[in-house]
């Protein structure tokens, strides 16, 4: 069974078509990357799949549940990391993780928080208030929050956005190991190296349409490109 099945998805903002009937599917345990220029419809697609936005056409099935009818069931199984997410500033890192874990099964809360603390790797700073964290620390906390709940599907919008090389690399490793443990990952990124390193398959999206879908290696061969960046430049309309 596909973890995600998107068929002819349409999303409009007023009269503007943000997503124009895209279709793709993601297998369980797969890391699937959405790449495209700014305003292509990546974040809109991720927000739709994260149950945040309604759809204007087509259908979306996540882990067997219909997005339109069973959004609350989907929310139990997914985790969404927005690109510019934040945390409650008055809470400590630990209290924030605890707050999130409390929404899930009571018996798993302690284990979830411990896992979150481990992922964030913030040491003693986990007990400091969130508003004292650097950007890198904040992002690690949020990644920890997103992955600690053992989601069946992790939707990560620019997971390494604004991070330095070291922090970004650590998060990439985390995403990879999360997928290896059975979680399906859908991510978007501007970083082509990241996409090439992480993703089993990618979809190139531009102006609300999917232009290409496939394995990075296959696409590079098809477009006789040395890397995904070249594939991107050759396929995405200027």
């Amino acid at each position, binding site marked *: 069974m596909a973890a995600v099945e998107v068929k002819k998805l349409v999303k409009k903002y007023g009269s503007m078509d943000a997503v124009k009937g895209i279709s793709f599917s993601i297998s369980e345990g797969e890391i699937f990357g959405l790449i495209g220029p700014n305003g292509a419809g990546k974040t809109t697609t991720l927000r739709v799949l994260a149950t*945040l936005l309604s759809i204007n056409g087509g259908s979306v099935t996540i882990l067997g549940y219909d997005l339109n009818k069973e959004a609350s069931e989907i*929310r139990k199984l997914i985790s969404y990391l927005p690109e510019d997410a934040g945390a409650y500033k008055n809470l400590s890192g630990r209290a924030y993780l605890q707050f999130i874990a409390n929404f899930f099964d009571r018996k798993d809360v302690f284990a979830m928080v411990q896992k979150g603390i481990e992922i964030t790797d913030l040491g003693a700073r986990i007990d400091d208030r969130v508003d004292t964290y650097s950007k890198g620390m904040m992002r690690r906390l949020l990644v920890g929050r997103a992955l600690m709940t053992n989601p069946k599907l992790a939707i990560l919008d620019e997971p390494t956005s604004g991070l330095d090389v070291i922090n970004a690399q650590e998060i990439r490793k985390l995403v990879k190991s999360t997928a290896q443990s059975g979680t399906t990952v859908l991510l978007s990124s501007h970083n082509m190296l990241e996409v090439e390193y992480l993703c089993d398959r990618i979809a190139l999206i531009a102006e609300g349409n999917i232009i290409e879908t496939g394995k990075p290696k296959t696409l590079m061969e098809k477009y006789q490109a040395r890397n995904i960046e070249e594939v991107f430049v050759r396929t995405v309309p200027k």
Partner: protein
Amino acid sequence: MSGLGNITKKEIRELLTPATFIPIIVVALIFATMGTSIQGLQEQSSEPPIIGIITEDNIGYGAMASTLLHKNAKSVFNSTSITDLHNGIEIVRQHEGVAVVIIPKNFTERIMQEQQGTIEVNWIMKGTGLMDSISSGALEVLLSYININLSKQLIEQNTTVNASFALSPTIRVETTSYKNRQFAGLSPNTIAGMLASQSMLIPLVMMMIIIMAGGIVITSMALEKENKTLETLLTLPVKRTSIVTGKIIAAAVIGLILAIIYMMGMQFYFKGFEVSGGVNLATYGLVLTTVDFLWIGISLFLALIAGLSLCMLLGTFAKNYKSAQTLTFPITMLALIPMFITMFADFDTLPLAVKVFTFAIPFSHPMMASRALLFDDYILVIGGIVYVGIFALITISIVVWVFKTDRLLTGTTKLKWIKRLKRQRF
């Protein structure tokens, strides 16, 4: 352009927003309306009071007092027998008058014996608001004027008269009737003053809770957006209803705590202004029972929930902390308006349009409840509770619906019926 000029121009441009000016314009309009109303009331108080006069003593000082009453008041009922009192009260009530004044048989005789002549005043109270007792104030002035005139007369006629008696040759015996109740020894002014001082606390508590807790709810929504935590919250396995009610309950608790702290200080402040007049309202049956307090509690609680759900709805429009501050203004106004109305006027005596407006504001009901319960007006209180309950339910449903739409994140909604309407029109 100099650096100073450049900065000044930029600052003025940023500050010249509707959000800065609309609140000030609305406040100015409210004060202007209040000023006009007060001016109207002053004019009303200078008009002769509408009364009924029963003159049983039509000779000497009695005739003099009666003449002064006829000359300075608008008499709509005249009689020479106390047996007509009931009929007189009805006629004066129909003419929206204030009282039936009786000059009893022995009035002149008592004054001749250097005993205070009794003037019986049967007040007809229209409402318990301070503004409702303005006409009765005009009659009180007239009765004092009669006293002074008789006093002058006595001094001019008899130089050996007892000084303290000469200064006060009349005594007033008052009975006020209001909502089928008789209050012996009290004038409408005294009753209204005492009720105002005793029932000022609930409107103030209500206003403070709404302003404080309302601000918390709106700011909370704005901060969720500003701190980028809303998106995460909305993808968690929690019902939208739980998010909405959780925020409302938290704000209500914090608002109550803040209001209690505030009111502890205010109570000491009010003690300095209490109008007791040595009269205990409980002796007139004007006392709230435990059940009454329960009704007030229910009314207060529901109004708070209705108010906070309204704030929550406004909060969905807040983009950040700054815009949240602007959005608290309509709520502040909605809390202030009924507070002023209930402080100065009685719901029963308000013009129909103002009555509907006051009833429609959910915060009015706990403010009106204590006075209404004192006079057993359960219909107003229970009707208010039902209305506020329905108001709260509808508002919460709308908020939950907004939480389920894209509006919260994108500022747009999928209102198909509005789109259809637009298409039909254009």
